[in-house]
């Protein structure tokens, strides 16, 4: 009897190997890939998915409540669109788009030079660009505040050396934008470097050889082939800038209210978790749609050299 069972088991195993049929969730769970991914999956579940679900749940709770066990309602969303909360949304999206564009224009020549021109110096430059990231961005922004504030480093120097009296440059939309560009520049630069490094030199030479001018090489070869890196950089910069909190507050002095500040206000001063959650959900939706649309256009396999 025991022997017979043994034989049956072996036969089953052989058939499973010969033709990989779905043999239940047990077999699936025993795969090496699933097992190795398990710790990370559990961590993500507890640390990322669960809080996210909580936020989504709270977004549908009645205003000013602190429990998720109530009948769901759309009151929060109605209030957001009825009152002027969408303004901070638009401000965020607008500033994020501007930041992304400016970073793109500023970073492309730098990234190109780091890949093709600077050679060994590029490593040192990369270090210099990353070094400020080791200091918390709040502190760096306070540094800029001292630089830009009326009677600060910049206006003081202008006054002393050239006799030019300047008004405070702080607490403006431009100062906010400057802060955003400053903070998120590396997030555009490094993916862009990766993208440009992926353009084979021979591809450029071939285009050049076939009669293309410098601009045509840039338009037809350089940018399209570096696009995966550029898109990833743009995505990171946009999403990070759209959720920025310190820049509008420290450099912008609340001359412009961005969405992150609104969300924080709802969760703290206003003690209105459902509304804060609803704002967050809208923000996540915008970022998510953007990320999915862009990432679908990028060939990740190509980037990781799997093709």
């Amino acid at each position, binding site marked *: 009897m025991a022997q017979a069972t043994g034989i049956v088991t072996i036969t089953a195993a052989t058939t499973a190997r010969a033709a990989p049929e779905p043999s239940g969730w047990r077999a699936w769970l025993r795969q090496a890939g699933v097992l190795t991914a398990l710790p990370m999956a559990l961590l993500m579940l507890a640390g990322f998915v669960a809080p996210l679900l909580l936020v989504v749940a709270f977004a549908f709770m009645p205003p000013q409540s602190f429990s998720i066990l109530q009948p769901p309602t759309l009151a929060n969303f109605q209030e957001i669109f009825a009152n002027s909360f969408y303004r901070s949304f638009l401000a965020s999206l607008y500033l994020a788009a501007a930041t992304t564009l400016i970073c793109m224009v500023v970073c492309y020549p730098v990234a190109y030079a780091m890949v093709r021109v600077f050679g060994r110096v590029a490593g040192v430059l990369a270090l210099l660009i990353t070094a400020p990231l080791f200091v918390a961005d709040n502190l760096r922004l306070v540094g800029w505040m001292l630089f830009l504030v009326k009677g600060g480093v910049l206006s003081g120097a202008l006054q002393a050396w050239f006799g030019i009296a300047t008004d405070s440059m702080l607490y403006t939309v431009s100062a906010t934008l400057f802060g955003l560009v400053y903070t998120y520049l590396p997030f555009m630069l490094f993916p862009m470097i990766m993208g440009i490094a992926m353009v*084979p030199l021979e591809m450029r030479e071939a285009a050049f*050889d*076939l009669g293309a001018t410098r601009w045509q090489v840039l338009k037809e070869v350089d940018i399209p*082939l570096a696009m995966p890196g550029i898109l990833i950089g743009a995505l990171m910069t946009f999403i990070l800038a759209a959720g920025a909190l310190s820049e509008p507050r420290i450099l912008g002095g609340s001359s412009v209210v961005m969405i992150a500040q609104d969300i924080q206000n709802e969760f703290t001063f206003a003690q209105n978790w459902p509304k804060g959650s609803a704002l967050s959900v809208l923000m996540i939706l915008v970022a998510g749609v953007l990320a999915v649309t862009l990432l679908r256009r990028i060939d990740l396999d190509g980037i990781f050299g799997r093709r």
Partner: protein
Amino acid sequence: MVTTEAEARAAQPILQLRAIEKVFDQFAAVDRITLDIQEGEFFTIVGPSGSGKTTMVRMLVGMDKPTRGDILLRGQRINDVPANKRPTCMVFQSLALFPHRTVGQNIEFPLKIRGVDPAARKKRALELLAQLRLPDHYYGKAVTQCSGGERQRVALARALAFDPEILFFDEPLSALDYKLRKVLEKELKDIHRQTGKTFVYITHSLEEAMVMSDRIGVMNRGRFVQVGTPNEIYGSPTTRFVSEFMGEVNILDVTVGPDGTATDDVTGARYLVPPSAGAGPCSLVIRPESLRFVDGPSQAHNVVTGTVYNEYLLGSRVQYQIRVGEKQVLLLENLRDQRYEGDLDSPVTVGWDTGDSMIFPKGPLQ
């Protein structure tokens, strides 16, 4: 008046290299090369890796500038004309097809650059697809989905769309398997005939060069060792380097005495050799197909005895490894129907005629 002009044009080489030199860190990758390439010619530059052939072509296409010397295109100095202003183009070793473009867009690229309208572009691309025996529906196919041979054809079509005066090739076939390479070599020669354009081809395979070229230049250490027709290169190589480059050859180290006969440095045997440049240490080169099995000394000018150590079947031909004494190994090649009938390791006599051997003095420029 018009005819004389046309005649003068035809007589003038399309491309002239005047002592061109490319120096990298005091190392001359291309060392004072002077060469004329004729209109409509299929000229192949052959050389081992590091011989300077790619460096040379990069200068001819305009991607690098010569350190010294002049490049003349139809008599006009073009040293300082950048690649995108030269009426020449190159098929890269990697082909450098644009992966983000379709087959059609790749072929149309040079036309798009020139501002040709889309309808005319497409018409030309389809013509080229037909000329290179690719089906019409490949027009919209992604380049990344094409096979090696198909990509090769797309790259050639793109270069032809440019309509260059000279078409350069930098070992485009080297990554392909033997069979496909043979097919494409012949196709390329056909295309050369059809278009009548000047082709300058680079390869490390003299065999490939033989199949396609009108003239071959064998390069070594930045210089041409020999320039000639395939027949000349094969039949009368001027140096040991060229003779060796063709493929497997027997090279014997010999010393030529004052009487004109050679003594084998290894076995001490005496050989009759072709009249050489002078006495002293020389290399005696015998092609495997020039060696044959003989019954006795009367059947060939030179004979040696050894044992058959190994037999290699090469399809239509068969090769034998003959061991002479302890240290010498000779390679003999016969047609398959002239197979050796005896046993391995049994003694044999092999011989060759003086006229089938080549002798080169040993010197620095071998």
